[in-house]
């Protein structure tokens, strides 16, 4: 977060225009003469930060450098912040200052404050990405500025735009090297924003065949009914292994993906599921439970209503005796009767 202290020195802008030599290690090259007058405090602060890579609070700085007054401390911190060496974070007990990663520090050279601001906002959005309008809200910058900055950052290959699956016209921005989150790309079932229905269908059928063959084997074994029933169950882990071994998927599928496929089979009425308690540590158990799946037959045959053409007729509601469409002149019935 960029913190706007009340006493930000105007020199901050001046410093940011300095070119920094590329630092690969955290050796202090600030001792170059180009740093301005109050560098001693800054350098001390910098070294202190290096000692505590997880961040330091105000308290720590005070303990270490008791001679530093509050205002001087603030100035030094601001300097380091504007130079992009420090990160300002907030935790439960107050503000935290942390060394910024050297790599990222180098990238921001040549960028001005606004760009840094936008960059930080995008970074905070993590791998879900953030929409341009939200960037505008968070940074309070006008739209034209935002667009310019975004274009700039994109050309510098610092951020990238990812099309969202939910709304195909919306673009979210995220850091260049991050993997987009599943909710944005849709996970394994989407490839380039297209839902892969054939892929899902194929997986569907494979899982069903596997469960069905298992049920048949169990039925043919002619043991007592309870044993038969138990052996016709398959855990989600087994199904996952089977699908991975089949190798029909070019994308790696997790167990949760397989479970969503199995759920669709449940909604097709072909499979039923039970949950049993399993010890932690047994293969495939999640939170102390295991899901078992089993192929089933439908409990009734297609019902009587659909054996008549009226049950499937698209103009059922318009059909009246004596009207244009009536049982006496029904074309569907005529065809069906001659069948």
């Amino acid at each position, binding site marked *: 977060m960029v913190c706007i202290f009340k006493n930000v020195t105007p020199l901050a802008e001046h410093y940011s225009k300095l070119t920094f030599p590329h630092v690969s290690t955290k050796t202090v090259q600030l001792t170059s003469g180009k740093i301005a007058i109050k560098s001693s405090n800054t350098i001390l602060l910098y070294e202190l930060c290096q000692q505590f890579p997880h961040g330091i609070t105000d308290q720590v700085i005070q303990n270490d450098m008791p001679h530093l007054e509050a205002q001087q401390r603030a100035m030094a911190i601001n300097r380091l912040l504007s130079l992009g060496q420090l990160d300002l974070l907030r935790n439960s007990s107050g503000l935290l200052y942390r060394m910024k990663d050297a790599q990222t520090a180098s990238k921001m050279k040549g960028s001005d404050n606004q760009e840094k601001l936008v960059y930080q906002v995008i970074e905070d959005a993590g791998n879900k990405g953030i929409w341009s309008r939200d960037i505008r809200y968070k940074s309070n910058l006008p739209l034209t500025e935002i667009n310019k900055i975004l274009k700039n950052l994109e050309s510098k290959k610092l951020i990238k735009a990812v099309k969202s699956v939910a709304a195909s016209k919306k673009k979210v921005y995220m850091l260049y090297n991050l993997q987009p989150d599943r909710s944005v790309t849709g996970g394994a079932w989407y490839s380039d924003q297209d839902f892969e229905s054939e892929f899902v269908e194929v997986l569907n059928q494979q899982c069903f065949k596997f469960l069905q063959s298992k049920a048949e084997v169990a039925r043919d074994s002619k043991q007592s009914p309870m044993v038969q029933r138990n052996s016709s169950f398959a855990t989600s882990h087994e199904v996952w292994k089977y699908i991975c071994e089949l190798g029909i998927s070019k994308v790696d599928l997790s167990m949760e993906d397989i479970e969503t496929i199995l759920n669709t089979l449940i909604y097709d009425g072909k499979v039923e599921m039970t949950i049993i308690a399993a010890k932690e540590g047994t293969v495939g158990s999640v939170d102390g439970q295991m899901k078992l799946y089993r192929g089933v037959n439908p409990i009734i045959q297609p019902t009587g209503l659909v054996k*008549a053409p009226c049950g499937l007729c698209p103009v059922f509601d318009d059909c009246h005796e004596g009207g244009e469409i009536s049982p006496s002149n029904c074309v569907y019935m005529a065809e069906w009767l001659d069948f």
Partner: protein
Amino acid sequence: MTAQEVRLCGLLLQEHFGEVVERIGTHLLRGGAQNLRTIANETNTPLDLVKKSLCVLVQHGVCDFGSGRRGPGSPVEYRGNCERVLRILRYPRYIYTAKTLYGDTGELIVEEVLQRGHMTMSNTVKTVADRLTHNMEEGRSMEYSEVVSSFSKLVETHFLQRCPPVAETATAAPSATPATHRTPASVTPPTAESNPDCYKLPPVTLTGRGKRRRSSDDGEEPGGVKKAKMDSESCGDEGIYWQVNFERFHQHFRDQAIISAVASKLDQTSSEIVRTMLRMSEVTTTPTAAYTQPLSANEIFRSLPPNYSISRPILDQGGSLTGRSDLHRALANLARATLESVVQERFGSRSARIFRLLLRKRHLEQKQVEDFAMIPAKEAKDMLYTLLSENLVQLQEIPKTPDHAPSRTFYLYTVNQLPTARLLLQHCYKTVANLIERRLFETKENKRLLEKSQRIEAILASLQASGAEPEQLTEVEEMITAPERQQLEALRHHINKLDSTENQVDETIFLLESYIISTKSK
């Protein structure tokens, strides 16, 4: 009494009883309770015809009468019973069930009672014996005792019951004490079950054999006249009329449906267990009970048919030690499966997936439906809207803000099982009515052809009986040309198909009706 139901009832009444009865019947069904004068005036039929049709309707239990609304002094009012008319559709199923359970004798008994509405036992036995004798070979005839035994078996298992005694007329009411009679001022007619002797056979012994009916036997022996007189003597059970106990048959159908569902879901053995449990509680549960009586595992094990040798441990594993079937749940599941199958056949397996998903998860947003069902967004949207337009799926709005702004409202899709079942039931009634009308239409279209074939058959039969030569027979047969014969065949095929489909749709009607009734009684 919806319009569809009334239309179907009208068609059934017309087929079974004729035009006049149909007119009176539909008028009664549409108009509620009416007295004689109103019926006669509004339907423009002469009074005696009205009386006769009312007799027919009462005989078959379609029409009830009770004292009028203005108290015991007002004229009697008649009420039509729509449900009872719809049972007519199910007669073939009843007869078939009786046949599977009790053989030909049972089948004929049930058929006779269904045709006549109410019958005495002696009458039934005689008619059935005669019919059976007629179909047997020469020289053999049916013993009355066999028919009586079938009859008593039917009564024992409650498939037949006595008709309820008729309430006293209004004039006798004041003199009767309320303790002994149901006062006629009460509007509800006594049910069959209220009679404690409902399932008791009358103490008569019928001996004799069935008489073979000869078509050319006009001049009966003088003994025949005497025999006829003897037959019409009272056999001691005058006034005790029997009717078919529809509820019992329905219970039987329901049990069958549950057993076959269990068989396909689990396996054969479990279905046998369930069948035994249901059979043992057949006579002890009332038709509307939610649960069967609890039975211990011992009883179940003892009553299992001996050729199913299942060891005790397996029986124990198969279910709780005191088995109890939840009939409501079973019916709800069957009704749900029916709805799902209709959606599947009509709209495709993907729409069926969405439908089942909504049934399970109750309320879902558009996006969630797509995710769970793994169907592309565009197609899912299309299917949901189709289902919505057919009223199989409903939309529930949940506003986020007090002004129900569409952008700030949740729209959830949901399926309500009970209203959807009612909707489908009405569809079924309309379908059956359509099938019947089509059948009548087809018959009417080919009336000329049918009449011609009937005439030719009659000529053939008379020629054969009087011993004609083969050439004459072939000459007569050739009067029907080949294309006409084909047409006749096609017509016969059509009518059979329509008939059998009516029965199949009736199965759906039965499932849905049982489900709806079981929810009402909760």
